[in-house]
C-alpha cells in the first residue's frame, strides 16, 4: 500500500496527526442522536421488564409448572414430528413437481402446473379441515380394477373386481390427514423454489455435461441439482420455520396432541389462559431458534467451496500484488 507516500498532493510531511508508523490519529465524529435513542429505548425496556415482573396476570410460577408438564411435552414432540415429516415429504414432492414442470413432456408439465396451482391457492387451514373430513367420501378404501360396478354387470359377471379393502378411518387417522395436508401444501411451494434453483444454473453446465455423453437424468443428478442447492437451501430454511408454526393449524382436523392445542386446553380448564399463551410463544421461540441455528450451519456448508475459492483467490492476488 502507498498510504503516506503519496506526496504529490500534500507536499509537507504530516506530523502531529499521525504517529510514528503513519497511522492516522483523528477526533472521531460524534453521534448524539444514537445516545438519545438508546436512552429512550432503555427506559422502554425497563418499563417492559417491570410489567413482566409485577403484573400478576403473567402468573410465572403457574406458567413454568405447566410448561413442562407431560401433555405439553407430548405436544412438542408431535409438533416436531409433524414439522420434520411434512418438510421431508414436501421437499421430495417439490423436487418431483419441479422436474415435471421443466421436462419436455407436455403432460407432465401440465400435471405439475395443476398441482402447484391448486395447493398454493387453497389455505393450509382449509386443507387441514378438508383432509380431516375426506373419510366422508368412502367408508372403505378399496384396490381393484376401475369402474367395475359398471362393466362387470355388462359382461354378466357377478361380484366385484376389488382385491383389497381397508376402512378409511384406520388409514386416514388425524395424524395422516395432518401429514397429507401439510406436505402436499409444502410440496407446491417447494416446487417453485426448486424450479427457480434449477433455472439459476448456467445452461453451459448442461451442455458441457451432455457433450461428455451424460444422459438427461445423470446431468440433473450430478450437475444441475447439486449446483441448484445453493439457491434452494436458504428459502427452504424459511419454509421449515413457517411449517413449524403452521403445525398449530392441525387442531382443526382435529389432531389434538399438537403443542398449541395442549397449552390452550390447560389454560381453558384452569381458567388461566394468558400464561399458557405466553408459554406457547416461548416454546415456538425456542424451537424456531434451534431451526435457525441449523439453517445457518447448513448454508455455511453449502457455500464452503465458494469461500475456500474466494480465500484462494485473495491469497494469489496478494501474492502477485507484492
Amino acid at each position, binding site marked *: 500500500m502507498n498510504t503516506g507516500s503519496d506526496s504529490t498532493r500534500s507536499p509537507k510531511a504530516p506530523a502531529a496527526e499521525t504517529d510514528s508508523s503513519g497511522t492516522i490519529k483523528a477526533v472521531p465524529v460524534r453521534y448524539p442522536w444514537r445516545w438519545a435513542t438508546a436512552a429512550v429505548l432503555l427506559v422502554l425496556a425497563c418499563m417492559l421488564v417491570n410489567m413482566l415482573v409485577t403484573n400478576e396476570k403473567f402468573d410465572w410460577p403457574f406458567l413454568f409448572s405447566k410448561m413442562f408438564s407431560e401433555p405439553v411435552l407430548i405436544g412438542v414432540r408431535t409438533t416436531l414430528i409433524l414439522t420434520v415429516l411434512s418438510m421431508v415429504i414436501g421437499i421430495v414432492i417439490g423436487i418431483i413437481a419441479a422436474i415435471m414442470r421443466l421436462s419436455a413432456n407436455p403432460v407432465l408439465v401440465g400435471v405439475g402446473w395443476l398441482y402447484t396451482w391448486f395447493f398454493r391457492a387453497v389455505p393450509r387451514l382449509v386443507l387441514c379441515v378438508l383432509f380431516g373430513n375426506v373419510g366422508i367420501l368412502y367408508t372403505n378404501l378399496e384396490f381393484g380394477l376401475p369402474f367395475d360396478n359398471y362393466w362387470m354387470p355388462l359382461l354378466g359377471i357377478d361380484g366385484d373386481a376389488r382385491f383389497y379393502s381397508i376402512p378409511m378411518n384406520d388409514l386416514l387417522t388425524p395424524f395422516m390427514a395432518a401429514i397429507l395436508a401439510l406436505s402436499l401444501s409444502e410440496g407446491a411451494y417447494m416446487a417453485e423454489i426448486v424450479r427457480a434453483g434449477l433455472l439459476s444454473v448456467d445452461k453451459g*453446465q448442461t451442455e458441457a455435461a*451432455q*457433450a*461428455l455423453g451424460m444422459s438427461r437424468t445423470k446431468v440433473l443428478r450430478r450437475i444441475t441439482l447439486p*449446483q441448484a442447492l445453493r439457491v434452494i437451501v436458504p428459502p427452504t430454511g424459511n419454509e421449515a420455520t413457517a411449517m413449524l408454526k403452521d403445525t398449530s393449524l392441525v387442531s382443526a382436523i382435529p389432531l389434538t396432541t399438537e403443542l398449541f392445542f395442549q397449552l390452550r386446553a390447560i389454560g381453558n380448564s384452569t381458567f388461566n389462559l394468558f400464561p399458557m399463551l405466553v408459554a406457547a410463544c416461548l416454546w415456538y421461540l425456542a424451537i424456531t431458534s434451534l431451526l435457525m441455528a441449523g439453517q445457518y450451519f447448513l448454508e455455511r456448508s453449502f457455500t464452503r467451496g465458494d469461500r*475456500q475459492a474466494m480465500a484462494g483467490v485473495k491469497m494469489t492476488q496478494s501474492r502477485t500484488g507484492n
Partner: protein
Amino acid sequence: MTQDAPRVGAVTGPDDDLMVVAENVHKSFGRLHVLRGIDLEVRRGEVMCVVGPSGSGKSTFLRCVNHLEKINMGRLWVNGHLMGYRQKRGKLHELHDSQVAQQRRGIGMVFQNFNLFPHMSVLGNVMEAPVQVKREKRAGARETALHLLERVGLADKAGSFPRQLSGGQQQRVAIARALAMRPELMLFDEPTSALDPELVGEVLDVMKDLARDGMTMIVVTHEMGFAREVGDSLVFMDEGVVVESGEPRQVLANPLHERTRAFLSKVL
C-alpha cells in the same frame, strides 16, 4: 424435409478414412436460417480451422456435429455414424436421448467459457464422465485423470476448485476433461477468445501437442497464427455457407473470394 440417402447402406458412413462428413446441412432457429447448406469433409487426423465473421454460424455448426442442435436438412456423419438418427428402409428414425448420449461419448467439446463444473475439484471434473458415463473404476479413472492433468501441465492443481484457477488453467482442465473420454474427434469453439492475451499461448500449446499426436480436430478460432502453423485445412464461413476452403497458407495468402479477402483484411 429430409432428402433421400445419398448412398446406399449409409449407416456405416461414406468412407472409412473420413471422420466427419457434412452434406447439405441446414439449421434454422424458428425463422432464422442460420446454416444454409454446409458441405464438409474432415479426414482422420486432420486439424480443420474454421473462421468467419460473428453470427456466420460457426458455433451452430460445431454444435450440430455432436447433436447439441438438431439439423433440419441434410446429413451429418461422425466416425461412420449418422448423428442423431438411424436410417431404416429409407426412413429416418430419431434416436433416443440415451443413444444420442452414447454417440457423443466419442466426441470431445471445449467451450469458449470453459464450463467446468464449479462444485467439483479439478480432479473431480476430469474423472466425472469416465466414472459416471463409462462406469470405470474410481482408482483407474483417477490415475488416467492425473496423467491427463500432467499432460496439460496442471498435475499440481488436481485438488483445486475451478474458481481458484486462471482462465488459461481452466481451459486446459476443460481439455483434459474432454480427453478423459478418449474421444476420436475434438471440437473447439473459440477456446482462447475469453482469455487474457498472455494466457492464450499455454492453451494453444496444449492443442498443438494434441494435433501432433494425430487427434482429429475442428477448431473455430480467430488465431490465424495457429491456423497457419497447425491447421491442415482452413474453412471460411459466412452467412451459413462455406465460402472458401483449402490449405491454410494458401487461403490466407491468396483468398479467392472477395468476402474472404474483406474478412481477412480486418483480422490479420
